């Protein structure tokens, strides 16, 4: 049985990942390759940020170590060193091929994480995670469709392949330091899907998580949301 504070820690990893990946994607709204894609990324971004808010609220109920009034405290008042974002999410990019691979990897890992967390939580948290899982399926399918479309041309294939090599170690290390540490399920399912689409996958199994080592982009994101809220009374992220 997992302890409440250990569970709160795992949920915090998830909420931080969701907040950052959603916020980075929101910044891409308007920067997608065509108008329909901009609708899609805005929608995914909104959903991820909404998930972060709900999970932060769940943590408030679970762990008395966090004393903020609402989810906003996690974003606006928490010491920056308290953000536990994974390296996979922390690396911001505006390159479209990189975004596809980063998000596809993240959604695959996130799907596994949610399915495992559902097994160990109870009550409302379990129900919330269950409902998030059915929404996340849309996200996963979206990035998988992009991979498949990109694999249709030589140039698309080359660019995606390059990004697969780049993000692979970050996916491989995604679960390091979490209670899901030794799992290979995500890894195997991603490998299988990529192979089916004709992509090569590296043999690296170790990788690194980089969780809590914040990139400048994440620090900037935190600062920017705080500046926004300070300048705008009653503002929300």
């Amino acid at each position, binding site marked *: 049985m997992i302890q409440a504070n250990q569970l709160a820690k795992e949920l915090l990893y998830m909420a931080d990942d969701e907040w950052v990946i959603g916020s980075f994607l929101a910044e891409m709204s308007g920067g997608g390759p065509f108008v329909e894609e901009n609708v899609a990324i*805005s929608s995914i971004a909104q959903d991820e940020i909404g998930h972060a808010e709900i999970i932060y609220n769940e943590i408030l109920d679970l762990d008395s170590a966090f004393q903020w009034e609402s989810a906003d405290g996690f974003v606006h008042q928490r010491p920056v060193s308290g953000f536990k974002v994974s390296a996979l999410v922390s690396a911001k990019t505006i390159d479209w091929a990189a975004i596809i691979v980063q998000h596809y990897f993240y959604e695959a890992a996130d799907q596994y994480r949610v399915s495992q967390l559902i097994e160990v939580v109870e009550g409302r948290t379990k129900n919330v995670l269950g409902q998030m899982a059915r929404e996340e399926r849309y996200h996963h399918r979206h990035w998988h469709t992009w991979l498949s479309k990109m694999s249709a041309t030589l140039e698309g294939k080359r660019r995606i392949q390059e990004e697969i090599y780049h993000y692979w170690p970050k996916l491989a290390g995604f679960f390091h330091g979490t209670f899901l540490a030794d799992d290979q399920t995500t890894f195997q399912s991603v490998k299988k899907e990529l192979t089916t689409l004709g992509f090569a996958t590296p043999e690296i199994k170790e990788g690194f998580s980089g969780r809590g080592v914040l990139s400048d982009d994440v620090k900037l994101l935190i600062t920017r949301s705080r500046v926004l809220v300070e300048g705008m009374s009653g503002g929300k992220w």
Partner: protein
Amino acid sequence: MVNNIDTVNENIIWECLYDVEDPELPISIVDLGIVNQVAIVRDETVNNGSKVFVDITPTFTGCPAWKEIEKRVIENVSLIENVTEVQVRLNYSTEWTLEKISLKGKAKLNEFGVAMSKIWRGKEIVRCPRCKATNVSRENEFGPTLCKMIYYCNDCREPFEALKSLL
């Protein structure tokens, strides 16, 4: 003396909730099927007073319209005589699905130009809300709100929105 008889009629609360329109869809939140329970508890501190609890299951967990819905419910239900406090509670113990939308709600949405989606024999079936054709193409699995997708009718050549089946 403790009086256990409710000072507020539950039917009146439901009527009141019926007047609350969803901020993103032009139908009542009751027709949308997101209100799943109303509870009335005597407020012992006020003569004849009662507290009202409204349980809501949002269509999507990340739905940003939720705060606005909460505000509208509180504003409306607070108007009822003897209601001293209104609380809106998020309820995730049940899942919202398209089946929770009332027939009247579905007809209204259709009239407005929002179609339903159905999964039949593993295939997604969507009918154009204008000409009823099934000769439609999905332009986008996402839409202007979390719960919608964008479709195009190949018969009447009009774009339209459809609600996600979430299956």
